[in-house]
């Protein structure tokens, strides 16, 4: 074995315990070190890929296997069932059954939000941009309940893709996502403040996604402000009663655009 082959095999399989690899590594501490480095890389891959599995998944799988729960499956049906294995109709039905409840919930949520904006016509709710922002906040309402901190570095890695950089944020960032705002990709983040979680949307203004409507908007729960800058629209949505302008100013003065 030469050095090149050794490296190729260790990189392909860092936990390779083939005797010839082990023997070759013994000849030179550098070889041993190389194996350790590659195993270290593998550990970090392992950690990064080790995402949490949804709770109760095994039970859900068993519950959703119809024949498994059916104590009366007659042998006469066996042929029929095995034919159905390749049948996409069965597949589509089970898919529908799985997706039905969340879909119904999402649909009713949208109806509720729609109804809210429709009925609050006379209550000074800004239309267009504000409605758009609020709908988005309600759509991802769970984003306000996160608590794990996301570093400014991570935020900026994403923000850099839109050509921007944040010097600081007024609080701990707990949610970070690229979102689609009427076809324009923007940043959606949530940070903690003394006035509860606040949502910020930073949307490059080329598409004028937030072009229409008042700059200030509110409903019974949230108040917000839209700042239409030359590079992007910055939208802040906070709990009613929070000093929205003060926070909007802080965020705007922290944004740098990398031209």
């Amino acid at each position, binding site marked *: 074995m030469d050095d090149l082959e050794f490296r190729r095999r260790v990189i392909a*399989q860092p936990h390779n315990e083939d005797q010839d690899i082990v023997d070759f590594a013994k000849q030179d501490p550098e070889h041993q070190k190389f194996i350790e480095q590659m195993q270290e890389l593998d550990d970090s891959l392992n950690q990064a*890929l080790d995402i949490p599995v949804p709770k109760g998944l095994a039970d*859900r799988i068993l519950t959703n296997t119809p024949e498994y729960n059916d104590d009366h499956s007659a042998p006469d049906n066996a042929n029929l069932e095995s034919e159905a294995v390749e049948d996409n109709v069965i597949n589509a039905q089970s898919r529908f059954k*799985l997706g039905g409840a969340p879909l119904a919930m999402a649909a009713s949520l949208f109806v509720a939000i729609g109804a809210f904006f429709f009925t609050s016509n006379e209550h000074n709710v800004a239309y267009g941009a504000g409605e758009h922002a609020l709908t988005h906040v309600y759509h991802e309402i769970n984003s306000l309940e996160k608590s794990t901190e996301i*570093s400014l570095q991570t935020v900026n890695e994403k923000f850099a893709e839109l050509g921007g950089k944040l010097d600081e944020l007024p609080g701990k960032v707990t949610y970070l*996502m690229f979102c689609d705002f009427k076809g324009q990709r923007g940043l959606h983040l949530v940070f903690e403040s003394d006035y509860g979680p606040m949502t910020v949307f930073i949307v490059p203004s080329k598409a004028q996604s937030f072009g229409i409507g008042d700059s200030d908007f509110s409903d019974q729960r949230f108040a917000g402000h839209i700042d239409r800058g030359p590079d992007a629209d910055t939208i802040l949505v906070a709990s009613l009663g929070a000093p929205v302008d003060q926070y909007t100013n802080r965020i705007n003065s922290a944004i740098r655009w990398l031209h």
Partner: protein
Amino acid sequence: MPGNNNSKSQVLVDMTEKKARYEKLVHVYHSELYRFAYWLCRDPNIAEDLVQETFLRAWRALDSLLDQKAAKPWLLTILRRENARRFERKQFDYSDVDNDTLVDDKHVTLDDEVEQTIVQRQIAKLPDEYKEPLLLQVVMGCSGEEIANILDLNKNTVMTRLFRARNQLKEALSRDDEQLKGASK
């Protein structure tokens, strides 16, 4: 003969055995399959659907699995086929353009979390032909031979792809590392 008492009770025994085998498969493999599916599609809901479909099909075809030791590659083959089917169906646009799920409830330090996100992103950037063997090896713990069987490739090709996958990651990550150091100066 159908209707005969003996054959009926035999059917019940067979069914009980089949259920026990199935439960075992689900409990042993659902986590690894979920992780593998997640990194293939990077969407927790689609990943769960894929795993569910895989086990549904596994249940229906369980009699064809003669050797329990072959269960893992068998399930992976079903899951990969299901994933391919997904692209044959109509594709929907999701509103979250990049569905980066950040790993939580692991109580990792901030540095670890940043590193994990960087590693995850670099893995996602790998071409599928390199990413899949790597996921099979790292997430599913498959050997070179198993990967070769599942992907229908020869073992040398698998080894070359594993080598290239890690080599690309190694280079990309050391580049990221230098950038991080540069940024903090």
